[in-house]
Every structure is written in C-alpha cells, then in structure tokens.
C-alpha cells in the first residue's frame, strides 16, 4: 500500500509539475528563413493628366473664378433652370411690386474671400441641349447661348460669417413679364415643362476680376426668384425656384487655364506631364497634382514586382505619396480622401478600382510628430496581389488617382505631391 501511495504521489507530481515559462528567449535560435520584409519601389512613371471633359449635370452648384498658384486659373460658370410653384389666384387688383433673386452661399469657398465678388446674370436664349450620344448629360466644356443684355449684376463679400440668404433686386422688365403670365394663368407658367422652355434659365458669369469659388445651396428655398405684389391690404410673394425635377439641364461650365504653370504643357488628356518634368521653385524634384473642378488627376503605371516565390506572399501593398507642404493651402484645402480608377494608355478613367466589390480608396495620413511626413496612403494589397499574378499585368497596371466622382464637382481641394510616389510591398516568407 505504501508503494502504491508513493507511486500515486509521483504520478501526481508528474501531472502538475510541468511549467514552461520560456516564451521569448532564444531569439537567435529561431530559423531566420521565416520573416517579414518590406521593399520600396519608386513609381517613376507618374504623370499629371487633365480630363478633356467631364459631366457636370449634378445638383451641386459652384460659381466664381479663382487663381491657384499650382494649377492656374479656374473659372466656374453655372447654368440654372427654374421651376414655377403652384400658381396663386392673381386678380386684376393685384399690383406688381418688384422681382428679387435670392441665393444662399454655403460658406464653402476656395481662394481669397476678402474681396468683392461680382457675377453677371444673363437669361438663356435656349434651353441647354441634351444629346443621346452624350448620355443626356452636360459637360464642363459646354456652353448655352444667352442674352447679351444683363438681367442683373450682383456683388457681395463672400466672407463666411456673413453667409445668409442674399437678396438682389432684378430688372422689372422680366418681373412684369412673369406677373402678366401669372395673371393670365398662361400655360407658360402653369406647366413646368412649358415654363422651362419658355424661360430657359439663367447663367451666372463670374467677373474677370473675381478671386474665389463659391458653393451655392441648391435648395429651392435658397435659390429662387421672388415676384412681389400686393393688393389693398396684403403683400404677396410668388417664387420660381431652382429646378428639383429638371435638374439635368443645370450644369457648370468649368475652364482651367494653367498659364504660368508646368501644366500648361498638357494639351490633351492623352498627354500627361511626367512628374520629373513638373519642376518648379517649391518643388525642385517635380510635382503631380489632383484637384476637383479643374480636372487634374495623377496617373501612374505601377511597377510589376514578383508576387512572391513559393512560401512567400504579399501581406500588404500600398502607394505612399508625400504631400507637398506650404502650397498656398490657407485658401485651398487638401483632399483628405482620394479615389483610384482603372485606366489605360490613353489616360481614360475606365471605372473605379475595386476588388471583391470594395472600391480602393486612399486617405491623407497625418504624422503627429513630423508634419513634413504627411502623406497620402492607398492600400492596394488585394489588387496588387492579383495584378502580380496576372499574365497581362503590364497592360492593366495603369491607375488614376484623384478626387471621387462626387468631389470632382463639389470640391476644389487639391492633392499636391512633390516626391516621386512609392510603392511599398510587404512580403512574408514562411515555411
């Protein structure tokens, strides 16, 4: 019995006494055939391209003229159509008073907002034409004829704290014209489709001496023409508002003139400006830029590196673009999010770059310790892994980087890069 007890004790000792505290020591014994490494490749084939045209038939309205030291002068001329409200019961005893234009800047601006901005308002002589071959869209390069006689000239200080509804008195000739139509209950004003064809719309032409871009609110309550009238006892207002149904006729003409900048050399979308050729005083190694409204994008042809040998694989791939500092950013904000598009040798934007139905996007990453290291980073791990395994990788490695399709028309923010972008690939070797 004592022997059994002894043996049981020993077995118990065996079962409870194992203890392994060794969990980090012996580093140099570890086989160094398993490791993670990073390789960086400079993307020398980086160009700035400029879209020949892009559709601007959206509900965002910008107007103005701004000079950007990086990309030159950009002029944005909006075209609007208006829709009448329900016709009131106007009798002969109602008397016309005046007609006013109401606009509401949103407070979003680019450029110098401390000076008076002037816009010349003209009535269109025909409705903006929509063509099937253009997908019934209007483009930034298009214009619509307008009456050379100004309907009104409006001027104001676009200082943010004063942004409220702005009221401008317009010429009474058109005001009386509208009032007569209301009194007669003419179909030119009772039916929206007829009114649009009758009135055609307005264009706000920025003055040559303007200094900034202004974003307007497009809500019907914020962009309208008010007709004021009264009877013996009451004052009335009838509104013709910015179109909410026929928005396809509203668009912006956008012209960028990069005179005095390296981007003046870009004549056509198919000819980009190589990064190294965009040397300028504050960018001695070169420059590339992407900006909303002006149509500038950054085009790259990615170097094709190995996907990894056997027992080696890509665990991360990213594009890193160092942001240029001190480029008049007080008046121009930086893009904080960027989109990536598939492209080709003709620099076309084919489609958003996506993998597994998820669009590839990049963002501005701030370095809290050293702001000089702020950079745009785009994670392209899945895309690049597939690309390196593709048989025709050298034909499909073109990408374009820039504002999203929405920001292209809603923002003048800029991405400015003054060092050759880097492709950073992390490999894990294992066995």
């Amino acid at each position, binding site marked *: 019995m004592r022997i059994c007890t002894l043996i049981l004790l020993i077995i118990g000792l065996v079962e409870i006494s194992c203890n392994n505290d060794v969990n980090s020591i012996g580093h140099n014994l570890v086989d160094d055939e398993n490791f*993670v490494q990073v390789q960086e490749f400079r993307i020398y084939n980086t160009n700035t391209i400029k879209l020949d045209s892009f559709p601007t038939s959206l509900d965002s309205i910008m107007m103005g003229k701004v000079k950007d030291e990086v990309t030159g002068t950009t002029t944005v001329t909006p075209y609007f159509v208006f829709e009448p409200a329900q016709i009131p019961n106007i009798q002969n005893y109602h008397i016309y008073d005046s007609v006013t234009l109401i606009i509401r800047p949103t407070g979003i601006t680019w450029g110098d907002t401390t000076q008076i901005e002037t816009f010349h308002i003209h009535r269109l002589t025909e409705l903006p034409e929509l063509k099937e071959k253009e997908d019934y869209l209007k483009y930034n390069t298009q214009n619509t004829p307008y009456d050379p006689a100004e309907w009104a000239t409006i001027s104001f200080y676009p200082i943010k704290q004063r942004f409220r509804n702005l009221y401008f008195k317009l010429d009474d000739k058109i005001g009386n014209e509208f009032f007569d139509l209301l009194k007669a209950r003419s179909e030119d004003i009772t039916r929206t489709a007829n009114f649009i064809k009758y009135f055609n719309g307005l264009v706000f032409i920025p003055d040559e001496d303007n200094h900034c871009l202004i974003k307007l609110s497009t809500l019907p309550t914020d962009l309208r023409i008010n007709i004021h009238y009264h009877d013996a006892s009451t004052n009335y207002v009838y509104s013709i508002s910015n179109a909410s149904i026929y928005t396809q006729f509203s668009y912006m003409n956008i012209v960028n003139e990069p005179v005095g900048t390296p981007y003046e050399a870009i004549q056509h979308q198919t000819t980009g400006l190589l990064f190294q050729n965009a040397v300028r005083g504050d960018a001695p190694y070169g420059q590339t830029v992407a900006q909303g409204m002006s149509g500038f994008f950054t085009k790259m042809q990615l170097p094709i590196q190995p996907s990894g040998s056997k027992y080696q694989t890509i665990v991360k791939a990213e594009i890193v673009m160092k942001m240029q500092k001190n480029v008049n950013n007080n008046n121009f904000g930086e893009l904080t999010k960027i989109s990536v598009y598939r492209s080709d040798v003709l620099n076309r934007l084919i489609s958003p770059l996506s993998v597994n139905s998820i669009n590839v996007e990049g963002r501005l990453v701030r370095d809290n310790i050293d702001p000089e290291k702020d950079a745009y980073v785009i994670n392209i791990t899945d895309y690049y892994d597939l690309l390196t395994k593709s048989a025709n990788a050298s034909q499909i490695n073109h990408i374009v980087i820039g504002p999203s399709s929405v920001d292209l028309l809603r923002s003048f923010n800029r991405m400015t890069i003054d060092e050759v972008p880097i492709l950073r690939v992390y490999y894990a070797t294992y066995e």
Partner: protein
Amino acid sequence: MPPMNSFMKIIIKILLILSLSSLSYVVTAQNSSGTPYSMYGFGLLKDNYGPYSSMGGVSAAMRDNNNINFLNPASYTALDSNRFYFQLGMDGEYVRISTHSENSNYRIAQNAAFNIALRLARNLYTSIGFNQRSSLGYDLYYYNLIGGSKNEYYDQHIFGQGGLNDFYLGLAYKFGNLSIGVNSIIIFGNIERRLTLYPIVSDSYYINTQTKVSVADAIFDLGAQYGFLISPISRITLGANLNLPTKLNADKDFVSYKVNATTGVQTTIDKEDLNEGNISYPLRVTGGMQYEYKDKWFVAADYTYQQMSQYEEFGRNQEFNDYQKGALGLTFLPARNGRFWWQRNKYNAGLYAVRSQLELNDIKIKTIGFTFGTQMPVKISDKDLTLGVAIDLGVRGTEENGLIQERYVKLRLNIAFKEQWFMKRKIY
C-alpha cells in the same frame, strides 16, 4: 500461469493507474520539453536516460539482475531466470536558460519508460516496453524589425509539440559468455509545428502555417555483450549496440493561411499532403565496457555515435553535425548481502559529454553533465524492488554569439520490481 497473489493485484492496480495517467498525458498533448533547442529535427534526443542515469547514462556493457537495461537488448540475459520484472522510469527536470541579456526557466516532468522482462526458455529472454525517444516542445514569441524598415515590426510566434516514442519487443539469447539481443522497435509519434507572422502595420494580412508530421515505422536495435573474468575477483564486460540507418515512413501535412487582420477573412495559400515521405534515422552505434572488482567497485565507459549529418526530412538534408557522446560511470557497493540497508545500496556517480548535432551561429552545441545517485534494494517477503534515484547536473549550450545556455537539474526515478513467478510448488 501462477495464481494471482496480493502483490500481483497491487501491480495490476498500478498498471491501470499508469495506463490512465499515460493516456491523459497523450490526450492533453502536453509539451514534454521547453527548450528552444528542441526545435530541430525530431526534437531533443535524450542524452542521459535508462536505468543507469546516475552513472552518466552508460549502457552498452551494463547488465545486472535488478534493472532492465532496454538500451542494450543483449543485457536481458542477465536477469533472473525465475523472476518477472517490471520497471518504470520517470524524469523530472528544472532548467534555467539564459542569454547574455535575459533568463527564464521551465520545469518538465513525465513518464519516460515502462518495461517488462522475463525468461521465455533456457537462455532465451524477452522484454517489452515503451520509451520516449525524443521530445519537442516550445512556444515562443518574438518581436522583430521588419526587414528593410527602420521602425516597423512584426510578431513571430512559433509553436511546436510532440516527439517520437518507442514501443519495442526484445529478445536475447545467451551463448556462454556471449549474449546477443535484438529489440524490434516501432517508432511512432506526431510532431506539430505552427508559425504565425503578424506584421504590426495597419490593414495588412498575417500568415498562419501548420505542419504536422506523423511517423510510424520499425527499426531494429542489435546488441551484444561479452563478459569474461580477468581474475577471480575482477571481470570485464564488453558491449555494443547498433541501429542501422533506416528510412522511417512519415506523412507530412502542410497548410498555410493568409488572414486579413481587419476582417478576419482567411484564405488558404498552400495545402500540401505528402503521404509517402520518409525521415531518415541515421546510423547509431554505442560501444562500451564495464570493469567489476570484488563485486564492490564497478567502472563503466561508453561512447555513442550517431551519423546525424545524414539526417534528412522528406528528402532534404537538415545539415546537422554527427552526434557524439562519451560517458563514464562509477558504482560502489559496500556489501551486496550486508546486514545494514546502507551496505546493500549502490552508490553511483558519473559524467558525460555530448557534442550534439546542432551547430548554430558557428558554435557547436555541447552538453556536459555530472551525475550521482543510488540504487536501493528493498525486499518485501519474496519480492524485490530496486529504487534508483539519479541526479543529473548539466549545462547545454552557451551564451556566446547570441545563443542560449541551459543549466539543468534532472531527477530520475527508476523503480524496478521483480517477483518470483516460475518457482514450482513443493508438494509435501
């Protein structure tokens, strides 16, 4: 078959307990080693084991009628012809490991061997048993700089468990002073290794791999011992045993995954099944001698060589060095039939030196150990028990060149029972 007596009942109970504890040991897959040196090959080979651990682990020429020396099958013929033998060996060790900048420790304890032996016929003996041949166990985390980066790191987690075990059936025959024997050994075991590489960067993948190797095959251990008197009071025994090089059948499964660290979505990168591979078990030779004087002083010496430079796993040479071990042991027995219990004890001491198969950072990994212990005979009516206690103090490796040094204290308990089974009843 002799009638079961109370002592046999005790033995059966013990065997049941041992079986259950061994089963639980296997089920929990407990790491049986904690040293990073077990990462290589099929794990850490045992440098000093067997019933003569207190004598530096000598075995080639060792034979007596109290212990089952399973390391040389020719020794079975030294056992009593009318006894049934059981033997159980258990190891425990405390190891302090250190580098030049840090240190740690671990403790391990395990059932190491279980053996049975008896005489089958005149001059023919047999033994059957279970031993542990190698052990592998580590669970290590490292924090490394990503190659090519100045300030980005990755975590590396390596894990290994398993080892090889023996199940053997041995036979030995005695031709006068010469004994020859053979152990037919089934080597079996599983070795599992896992690796995780986890870059500490945002929006990346990490890698998990798992390698499982299963071994099951047979080898033969041939042994011979020859003893002769050189004087009426002194005797020499020469011994040797040999494993011929053998390719052990082994299966290997390897799978690797790439896991998105943000979403957890896992993709299989590699999945390889090798069902007809092999691991080469190289030639191993042990030779030695024992000198006895007046049945009081015993001196033994051994040399072991294993051609580990020829070790291959699935056709790939692992670039090991050859394994060599030298051992020297001394026993003092005051009086075999002394009146006092301390006179009947054997007092042992020994030392051994190993040049292992490992060469890391241009340094050959060596082990030096000093052993001492005792074997105490305990008689219970007609039952004999020998309780062997061995202490092994040793150093493995070095802190040079960023390596690790292990200083260990091992305790081995060897319990050997023998009971008379084959005495004819006297009829009065």
